[in-house]
C-alpha cells in the first residue's frame, strides 16, 4: 500500500510540478504577448484623463461604464489599459535587468569560486559589504543618485542584486572545483580558463538558470517598489507599482484601482518563482 501510494504520490508530485511549470510559462507568455502588442490590445489610451469618468467601478458593478472593463482611477484613466501598458515596463525590467545581473553576478561568482586566492578575497569582501546594506534602501538611494527612469532602475537592480548570483555560483564553483573530473581535466592539459568554461560552467548552469528566473521576479518587484515610493519612471507612465501606490491611497473609495494591478503583479511574481522552482525540480535528478 505504502509503496504504491509512494509511487502514485511521486507521479502526482511530478504531474503537479509539470502543471506548475506550464501554468507559470503560459502566464508569462501571455504577458509577453500583451506587452508586445499593448497599443493594439489596450482598449483606451492609458494616459487619457477624464475627470467626469473618475473612479468608475469595474463592469459588473452598478455605475460601470461600457468600455471601462476594470473601471477607472481617480483621474478617469482606464485601469485595464494601464495594466496592459504597465506590462511593458515590468517585463522590460525583468528581462534586461535580470539578464545583465545574471551575467555580471555569475561571472564574478565563477571567478571567485574557481580562481580562489586574492580574486576570491576581494569579491567575497565586496559581497559582505553589499549584504550589510538594506537592499530596498540601497535601491532607493541609487535611484535618487541616478535620477528616475527605466535605465536607472535597471542599473540599480544590477548594482544591488549581482551578489545573489555571485554568492551561490561561487559556492557551487568551489564545490565543483574540488571534484575529481576537474582535476583530471587539468591533468589532461586543459588550461585554467578552459577548465572554468568547459568543465565548471556547464555544471553550474542549471543553478544559474534557476537563479535567473527567480531574479526576474525580484526585478519586477523592485520596479514596483520604486514606483510605489514615486522614484521609478515619470509618474505619468503607467507602471503596476505606480498604480498600486495610487490605489493604496484611495483603497477605501475605489478598491479596484489597487486590486487589479496587485493581482497582476502577484501572479507575475508567483509565476517567475514557480517557474524557477519547477525548473529546479526538473534539473534535480532526485525529487527533493
Amino acid at each position, binding site marked *: 500500500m505504502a509503496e504504491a*501510494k509512494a509511487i502514485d*504520490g511521486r507521479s502526482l508530485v511530478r504531474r503537479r510540478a509539470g502543471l506548475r511549470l506550464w501554468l507559470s510559462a503560459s502566464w508569462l507568455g501571455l504577458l509577453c504577448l500583451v506587452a508586445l502588442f499593448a497599443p493594439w490590445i489596450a482598449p483606451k489610451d492609458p494616459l487619457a484623463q477624464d475627470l467626469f469618468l473618475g473612479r468608475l467601478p469595474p463592469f459588473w458593478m452598478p455605475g460601470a461604464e461600457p468600455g471601462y472593463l476594470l473601471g477607472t482611477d481617480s483621474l478617469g484613466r482606464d485601469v485595464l489599459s494601464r495594466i496592459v501598458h504597465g506590462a511593458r515596463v515590468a517585463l522590460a525590467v525583468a528581462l534586461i535587468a535580470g539578464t545583465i545581473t545574471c551575467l555580471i553576478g555569475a561571472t564574478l561568482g565563477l571567478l571567485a569560486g574557481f580562481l580562489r586566492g586574492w580574486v576570491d578575497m576581494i569579491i567575497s*569582501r*565586496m559581497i*559582505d*559589504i553589499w*549584504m*550589510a*546594506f*538594506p*537592499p*530596498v*534602501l540601497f535601491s*532607493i*538611494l*541609487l535611484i*535618487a*543618485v541616478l*535620477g528616475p527612469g527605466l535605465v536607472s532602475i535597471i542599473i540599480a537592480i544590477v548594482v544591488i542584486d549581482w551578489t545573489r548570483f555571485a554568492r551561490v555560483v561561487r559556492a557551487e564553483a568551489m564545490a565543483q572545483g574540488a571534484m575529481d573530473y576537474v582535476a583530471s581535466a587539468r591533468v589532461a592539459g586543459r588550461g585554467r580558463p578552459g577548465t572554468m568554461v568547459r568543465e565548471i560552467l556547464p555544471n553550474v548552469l542549471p543553478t544559474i538558470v534557476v537563479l535567473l528566473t527567480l531574479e526576474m*521576479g*525580484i526585478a519586477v*518587484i523592485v520596479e*514596483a*517598489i520604486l514606483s*510605489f*515610493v514615486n522614484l521609478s519612471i515619470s509618474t505619468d507612465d503607467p507602471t503596476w507599482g505606480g498604480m*498600486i501606490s495610487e490605489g*493604496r491611497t484611495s*483603497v*477605501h473609495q475605489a*478598491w479596484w484601482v*489597487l*486590486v487589479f494591478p*496587485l493581482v497582476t*503583479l*502577484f501572479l507575475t*511574481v*508567483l509565476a517567475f*518563482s*514557480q517557474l524557477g*522552482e519547477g525548473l529546479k525540480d526538473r534539473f534535480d535528478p532526485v525529487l527533493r
Partner: protein
Amino acid sequence: MPFLRILFVRLLTTAITLAGVAVIVFFVIRVVPGNPIAMMLPPGATEEDIARLSALYGLDKPMITQFGIWIAGVMQGDFGTSITTRQPVLNLVLGRLPATLELSIMALVMAMILGGAAALTGTRFRGGRTEGAIDVANGMALSVPDFLWGLVLILLFGVLMPVFHISGRVTPSLDLPFTTNFYLFESLIRLRFDLWADLVAHMFMPALALAIPLAAIIGQLLKQSLKETMNLDYVTLARTKGYGETRVILREALRNAALPTLTLVGVQFTFLIGGTVIIERLFSYEGLGNMAIDAVINRDLPLIQGIVILFAVIFTGVNLIVDLLYTVLNPRLRHG
C-alpha cells in the same frame, strides 16, 4: 583558543565590512543631483545664503576633507546634524530605532510561531493530504515577497474585514505616558493593556507581512529536519515506552531538529530587518525605514549616512552573533 581566534577574525571582517559601507554610502550620496541646502531654504534665497549654510554644514569643503571630518565625528559618536530637522542625527536615529526593533522582533516571533506550527503539523500528519497542503502554502508564502503580502493584508484586514489599523504605529489621539520609545514593551511594564492592544492592532499587519516569507522558510527547514529526526533510534525507543506520536515529536524530535533551523533563521532575520524599510513605508509606520525614505527624498545627506550605517551595524551584528552562537553550540552538535 580556537573560539577566540574565530571571534577575532569575525570582528576584523565585520570592521572591514562596516568601513566599506561607510565609504560607499558617503561617496554615493554625494553624487546625488540637487543641492540639499537649496532645497531647505525658502524660494528667493540668495547665493550668499546658500553659501553660508553650505559652509555651516561643511558642504563647501572638498569631499575627502568632508569624509575625514565625518569619520572623525562618527568615531566619537557624532553623526552630524540632520539638514531638514536640524537635530543631531544620532538622536533622530536612536529615537526611531525602537519602533523598527519592536516591529522586527514581533515579526520574528510571528514567523517562528507560524513556521513552527506548520512544521509540527506537517510532521504529525506526514505523508498525507495535510502535509501536501502545508507544502503548497509554504511554496506560495515563499514565492511572494513581504511587500506584496503587505498589500494583500491591507486589502483583507484593512478594507474587506477592517479589524486592524492600516497605518501608523499608534492611534494619534491617545495620550502616551511613555518615557522610552519601546512603546510595546513599556506599555506591558506599565500594565497599560489598552495601549498595548492599540499598538498591536497597528503592528499586526506590517509584522505579519514581514513574517510570512520567513515563516515559510522556517516551516520548510524545520519540517525536513523533524522528519529526518523522527527516523532516529532514540525516537523509536521513546515510542516503545508508550508515548503517542504528538508527544514523541514535541519531546524527542523538536529540540534536536530546531538547532540547525535556528542558525539559519539568524541570517534570514537580517533580510527581514531589511524588509522593514518598504513595509514601514507601506503602513506609514514611524520607524527607521520610513525616516530613511524621507531622508533620501529630502536629500538629507547626514541622516541618510547615519541610517545606512545603523542598518549595517544591525545586520553585521546579527550575523556575528549567529556565527558565534553556532561555534558555541557546535561541539554538542558534533556528538549528536
